[in-house]
């Protein structure tokens, strides 16, 4: 097994929008070591979400390679991609994407069932600070609480990668910091590799590695020798 959790090599993704070809990603190359917390930073339209989708097996590259845990994800066909997502990737989204008709506990158990690990759901919710709200429906939870349910839901799979797409994008500053702290703690405690997309440069300061994207290119890769604690971030 390679030391690199994720390796991208000249990764490209083009979309056809009517008669126009959109080059969302124009050749990204980088490595992410295991256990690192990585921030993919860039303005809107820079290709960061496209990159996250390719790593997460939600989309397939037009060319290039994306290797996760030694597996070339870009070459997987749909059934293997489904298996890959089920076994190796946990997602956190900006809009939480909780199932509104299931309680917090049931939302986590739903994904736990897919991974064959339903029993830990209550413990995980306890760990993200929602032990008192297991039986609340999403509509009865605040935005921060919903995102914490989403984190617990991602973790119950015991994923190899935790991918977050603007996980604080829909939260206020205080709540955003709490969620970031939770992600940092999970990364440190479980040695989980985390890749997080954001347009907020301040969040980059808590990452081990910051990969900056602009117009589909990797503009810069920076290692933080001493990442800030989330509580120290300001924006």
């Amino acid at each position: 097994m390679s030391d690199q959790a994720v390796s991208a090599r000249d990764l490209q993704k083009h979309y056809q929008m009517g008669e126009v070809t959109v080059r969302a990603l124009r050749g990204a190359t980088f490595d992410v070591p295991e256990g690192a917390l990585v921030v993919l930073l860039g303005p809107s339209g820079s290709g960061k979400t496209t990159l996250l989708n390719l790593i997460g097996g939600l989309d397939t590259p037009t060319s290039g390679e994306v290797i996760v845990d030694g597996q070339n994800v870009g070459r997987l066909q749909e059934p293997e991609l489904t298996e890959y997502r089920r076994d190796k990737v946990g997602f956190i989204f900006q809009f939480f994407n909780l199932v509104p008709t299931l309680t917090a506990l049931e939302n986590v158990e739903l994904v736990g069932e897919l991974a064959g690990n339903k029993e830990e759901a209550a413990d995980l919710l306890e760990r993200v600070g929602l032990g008192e709200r297991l039986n609340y429906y999403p509509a009865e939870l605040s935005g921060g609480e919903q995102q914490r349910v989403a984190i617990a839901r991602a973790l119950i799979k015991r994923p190899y990668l935790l991918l977050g797409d603007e996980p604080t994008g829909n939260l206020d500053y205080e709540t955003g910091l709490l969620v970031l702290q939770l992600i940092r703690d999970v990364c440190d405690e479980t040695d989980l590799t985390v890749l997080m997309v954001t347009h907020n440069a301040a969040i980059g300061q808590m990452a081990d590695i910051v990969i900056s994207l602009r117009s589909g290119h990797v503009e810069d890769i920076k290692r933080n020798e001493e990442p800030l604690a989330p509580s120290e971030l300001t924006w």
Partner: protein
Amino acid sequence: MSRLWLKLFRDISAYRVQAIGIAVVVALGISMYHSFYLSYRSMGASYQWGYDELRLADFTIEMDVAPEATVTRLAAIPGVLEVAGRIKRDIRVEQTPGRRRVVTGRILSVPDEGRAQVNQLVLLEGRYLGPADRREVLLERGFAEAHGYSPGDTIYPVVQGVRRAYRVVGIVSSVEYLYVVRSKQNLFPTPDSFGVMWMRRRQAEALFQMHGLINEIMAMTSPGERDRVMAAMYADLRRFGARPPVPQEEQPSRQVLDEDLKGLGQFAVIFPALFIGTAALTIYSILARTVERERQQVGFLRASGLPAWRLGLQYLVFAGLMGIIGVIPGVIMGQWFALGITKIYLDTLGIPYLRLASGLVVGAIGVAVTAVSSLVAGWGPAVSAARMRPADAMRPGPSASMQRKPPAIITRLQRRASFTTRVALTNLFRQTHRTAYTLFGVAAGLVLMITTMSMMDATEHAINYYFGSVRNYDVDVGFERPVSETIVTQVQQWPGVQWAEGNVGLPVKLTHGEATDDVTITGVPAGSRLQRFRDEAGNPVAIRGYGIYPAEGTARELGIERGDLLKVEYAYNSRDVQLTRPVRVARTVRQPIGAGLYMSADALRQRFGAKLGFPPGTIGGMVIKARPGYQRAVAARASDLPGATMVETTFDIREQIDQAMAMNYAFIAVLMVFAGALTVAIVYNTINSNIHERRSELASLRALGVRMDEIARMITVENLASTSLGVLAGVPLGVAGARGIAEMWQSEMFTISFYISPRTFIVSIAFTLVLVVLCQIPALRSIREMNLAQMTRVHGE
């Protein structure tokens, strides 16, 4: 329970309004199918039970006369199980004052001892016939009811001018007269002027001077032996002037009931299919909207590693469950309705035995059909959910349709409109799925309503046409034998008579290729004022020349058209009288009710009359138009015409038709109730979903300070605009559906042409528009009462 299944049940619970709507639609469709189809099977089972248990003859053969001993000889033919001979005669019967004075009676003899073993009778009232020396009769139920007979009354058969009194001892139902008609040529029941009665053989022998003689045999045969035995008996009886044998399936009562049952069978399948199909389309539209609304959940579940097939299965089961929820109440209601419908039907026909067919098979078919149609309806949305790429599914933002602009004309119209109206009209083109679902829902409702209401329109229109043109007379007189035409001039002088015309009738068997039909050719005098004909296009048709003019039903039955050459055989061809002529079809004429075949009276007399005893200058019958208020008096006087055996009045016929049509009207009314209820359910579902899927948007508008009345106006304008498009699509589709039903709704007895009254269009469109507005009310109320803070917090709803 698996969390995925839990999600499914919670989703159904969350969409319970729509789920209940679909359940109602399915329940209506299934109850309709179940009740109609089970009634169809039950009636078939009841008829068959009667034919088997009451031993309806496998065939009958009429003859001039034969010795009674012939029966013993015929019984020896191998394959014969039982053979019985009887006397059968149609005669003038007089009644006591207070009843119509003269009717035609059919006397049938039964054995002197015991009961008839073939064509058995069911005693409904009174007692069976006593010893053979008593002057007693049993009356057929329909006739007894029409004239108010009960045991103890007296009736007076008249033979050769001699009137005899017979005591009515019982009222019966006969398996060979479940549907009482005179003959295969005359398939319309007229209990006012025609009745069947049974007496002991010795009484019939004395009445008709037929000691030791019979003129009809009825036979039962071993399975598979009928045709051989029938041929052998016919060969044997030809020397006694035997007419062609009548096998059971051509027996007039059975033939009419079989035709009727066949029609019910078609309706039992076609209408429920229309309803269940509509329910399936509703399931499709609800599920497609659900999948669209849950795009982000679909994306997340796929991103979490849920296989595509499992996700598709989730929505398929959703569709299946929504369908199945309605099946159970549908089957229960259907079972209950079926019992009611069958009872009403059998009571109307006076059939005293009911055999309810098993509802299990019918129910199982209904469940299977619903499950399959729900799954087919759910297939498209389920596959589209399964095929969604997770990244695309989770990407928020407007779809391509949101960038569409309304046509220039709408844009111009919008300029002066208020903001809410502008938004509503723009949404019509941007939210194309919503417009499409409303259009479909409204169109489906209109198709159902127009199709069912048109059946009522077409029936009324046909009956009015029949009595206004083809049967534009009040009294129809039939003579025992041809009489001189001069009698017409005499009748024209009677007070109260507006006009009278003589005619001739000839019972024949028509053959065209392989098809044969038993009908009576009516000879119509030149320039008839009382029988006017039109072709299918509505153009007047004069009956002239040597050609024949079949009614539409008859032409359809025989598959004949203008110019075809037919073989016309006298119906009572026998050893002594043999008459067969080729005749060409001149034109087909429109006649909604009954079979009919017309020819110029002069031509009929010239071609057939001389040999059959009605030469030129004679008539076999007469039709009379009375002045208003004189109909009954003229009919009563016509009964006294010498040799008059049949006097039928149009008002009695109309009453009979109205009674016969009562079942049809009830059936159509039930269909209309179903169609109306289904339309309510479809429109409610559509409109409710239209508003429900906009809860977030409407919550935002309300949060921004848009007033509730402005929101209501915006929704109403949008819904009414898309409803108008639905009306534009639904009306032509409804007309096409009505035309299709009219095509199907044809039998030899009825030819109901396509017709839709303006009333139907007005009622169905107005009903739909009002319904749309009313259906908005509960959803708008929920928008008014919703928790804005909560609605704006949960994303993606």
